[in-house]
């Protein structure tokens, strides 16, 4: 251990030496690689490493440059992320990948903005693959930030499109974690339901502290008492698994619409209690029509994860397309090429909006089922599609006033 510390200390000094090598394009992946969320971070890292390999095997980007993913552990901490960001820049990375935690994303957007202003010769792009707070493509938008996941509002837009057709649903109960994302989901649900289904009553709108509730039975009792037909929740992790388990225990059989029902470990934790109960809204699941089976098989074999982040593939392919188009891997050039870029994937055409740098892609509402072709996490469960929302239908108005480099 001591030698490692010394080595680490020494490397602080020599790190700049690595910076200049431009034959490989370094992409820093700043997400939790230790601590409670390490599994999620590792899953993402494996996706990007796999996709980077694919690109390298096919000849690299911008005229044969190889891409390399550097994993940096931020412990889902905003301050630590900024430290890792500085390290990433030092190691020559000009592209930053991050997704877990809106607080981290907010810190990174801000850090990238300041960095690019203060160091115009070392500009950096932030490629956000999962932080879905709408603010990043609205009031807090940045020219240097590109988001490849649909934000909370867009997903709600899609969900309410589906809800508009479900005439049997009259009473909706919203429950979420008491932080920005939970609040954003609740706010979006309220306004969009009022618009698209004014007859639907919101019978409950509840926030609970993040990760503190052990038994959701009291909430389920309230839901039942309120005559709920549909539960909408942005909960993830144990907060979602526990909610679903409590509902199953109470034999409370209404659909629970989630954002993260298929998140890593969730199907395992929820188990059969979630079957035909939990729905999710995502850009992908393994039983989606058109999903490339060979790729999924190969991915599972090489990484021991299921393919979950389809957008990792989209992101890397679009990065390559943009770099090829610009003929350069310079951040400023790539940003200009990426803005407004259209790209074809197996699931349809996707577009990077120029006005707020948000990717538009088809979304799917799916239900966890035990009667599907491809299952997840070694369980007998998998998702089956209920509803497809076309990319263009997910477009939401934006308040973004982007400052573009002159």
């Amino acid at each position, binding site marked *: 251990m001591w030698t490692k510390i010394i080595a680490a200390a020494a490397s602080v000094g020599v790190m700049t030496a690595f910076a200049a090598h431009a034959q490989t394009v370094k992409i820093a992946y700043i997400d939790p690689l230790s601590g409670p969320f390490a599994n999620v971070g*590792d899953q993402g890292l494996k996706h990007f490493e796999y996709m980077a390999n694919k690109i390298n095997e096919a000849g690299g980007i911008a005229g044969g440059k190889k891409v390399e993913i550097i994993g940096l552990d931020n412990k889902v901490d905003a301050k630590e992320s900024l430290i890792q960001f500085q390290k990433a820049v030092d190691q020559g990375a000009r592209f930053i990948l991050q997704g877990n935690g809106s607080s981290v994303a907010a810190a990174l957007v801000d850090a990238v903005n300041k960095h690019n202003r203060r160091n115009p010769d070392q500009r950096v792009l932030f490629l956000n693959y999962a932080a879905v707070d709408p603010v990043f493509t609205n009031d807090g938008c940045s020219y240097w930030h590109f988001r490849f996941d649909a934000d909370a509002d867009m997903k709600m837009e899609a969900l309410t499109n589906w809800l508009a057709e479900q005439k049997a649903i009259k009473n909706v109960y919203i429950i979420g974690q008491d932080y920005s994302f939970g609040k954003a989901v609740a706010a979006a649900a309220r306004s969009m339901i009022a618009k698209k289904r004014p007859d639907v009553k919101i019978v409950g709108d509840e926030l609970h502290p993040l990760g503190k509730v052990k038994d959701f039975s009291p909430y389920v009792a309230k839901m039942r008492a309120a005559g709920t037909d549909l539960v909408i929740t942005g909960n993830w992790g144990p907060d979602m698994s526990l909610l679903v388990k409590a509902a199953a225990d109470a034999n409370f059989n209404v659909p629970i619409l989630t954002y993260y029902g298929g998140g890593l470990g969730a199907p395992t934790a929820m188990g059969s209690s979630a079957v035909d109960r939990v729905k999710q809204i995502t850009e992908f699941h393994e039983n989606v029509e058109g999903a490339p089976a060979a790729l999924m098989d190969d991915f599972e074999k090489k990484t021991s994860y299921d393919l979950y982040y389809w957008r990792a593939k989209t992101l890397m392919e679009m990065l390559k397309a943009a770099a090829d188009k610009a003929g350069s891997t310079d951040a400023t050039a790539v940003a200009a090429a990426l803005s407004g870029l259209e790209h074809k994937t197996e699931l349809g055409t996707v577009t990077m909006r120029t006005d707020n740098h948000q990717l538009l892609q088809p979304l799917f509402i799916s239900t966890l089922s035990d009667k599907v072709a491809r299952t997840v996490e070694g369980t007998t469960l998998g998702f089956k599609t209920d509803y497809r929302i076309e990319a263009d239908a997910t477009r939401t108005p934006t308040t973004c006033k982007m400052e573009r480099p002159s």
Partner: protein
Amino acid sequence: MTAIDRALPAMRPVGVRSSPLAAVAPWLLGAAILLALPFVFPSRTGFTIMNAIGINVVFALSYNMLLGQGGMLSFGHAVWFGLGGFAAMHMMVAIDKLALPVPVFLLPLVGFAAGLLAGAVLGWPICRRAGTPFAMITLGIGELIAAAGLMFVTVFGGEEGIKGDRVVGPMLFGLDLGPQGGVYWFIAFWVFAAALAMWAFTRTPLGRLSLAVRDNPDRVPFIGYDPQRVRYLVFMVASGFAGLAGGMAAVNYEILTPQIFGALTSGNVLLMAFIGGLGAFYGPILGAVLIVLMQSMLSDYTEGWQLYVGLLFMGLVMFAPGGLASMVEGGARAVRRGDWRERAPAWASGALAFAVLAAGIVLLVELAFRAHGGGALRLAGLTLRPGDAMGWIIGIALVSLGAGLLRLLTRRGHDGDTARPA
């Protein structure tokens, strides 16, 4: 229960007769190190890490004011760090918005004032108890403030926190706070100033009395002082310095989130102070350096860094409660006594045994981590796979060899490097 334990290393009695030079020398050395560091680690990473270390040095020193000096074990020190930080951050935003003629350089003072004030208000009920009840109250307050941090969005900015820009307001000393290197001088100045102030505090009558309260709180009332009052005042000052560290963090990171109030921050500062050593003033400095390096650099090499921190902590609790500083002290004592030559072989063999043990543990842990994610461990041309027995056998052999050697050495009664200070 109320009396804090007496066997944890206390602050070394400060020699009253020490010569002026001996008192000034460590500070000159410290200043020299602070001046030299930027030339040794001139990279962006170097500055970033050193800045993080600087903030944590002040934070850990303020924690040691509580635990090492006042005998108060707190599980909620992050509260004052965070409140000080947010106060400074709001000030920074105000400087920008209202064009106040306040230099950003002085923001740590705002943090200090906020920490002091918060410590004065909340400390009043907290300090009515000592010992374990005190520890439990700080735990409760820490949880409550952490929860409140997420609830009051206008004050703490919700999950995404509050952002600021440090390149606003008038410049002081012509220092541009834009680049990381500029921030380094800001951090270095405050580390030096805060450390000096905290050291001076230990020398004041209140500082001496806080040692007395830590040592034997039951006797203090019978020499005319109210121990509760002493604790309260020390608590306030320690909160103030934690707030100062928070103010430094606000300037360095330009963003603060309510995460800062979390149990993780409070736990980390305890680890830093303890691993470095509560018994010497400079102990927490060592701890802060080590923990920040492990957290931000070691994590590049292994996902098991937390396990190593945990093992290091447990090892010190069990075998060297004086922390790293006690080893330094042991060495310094031997040099003063002039018998370090006789002891050197024992130290060397102890260090060797420890290295063997540590190597074995690291090997086993790294193999175990790879057992889940796959992949092999590559070391000096040797490839070990978690699936093969080879690596495990080597690991276990190293651990048993190291443990056996250590046992043998301690049996022989060597005053090795793990000995506690008298």
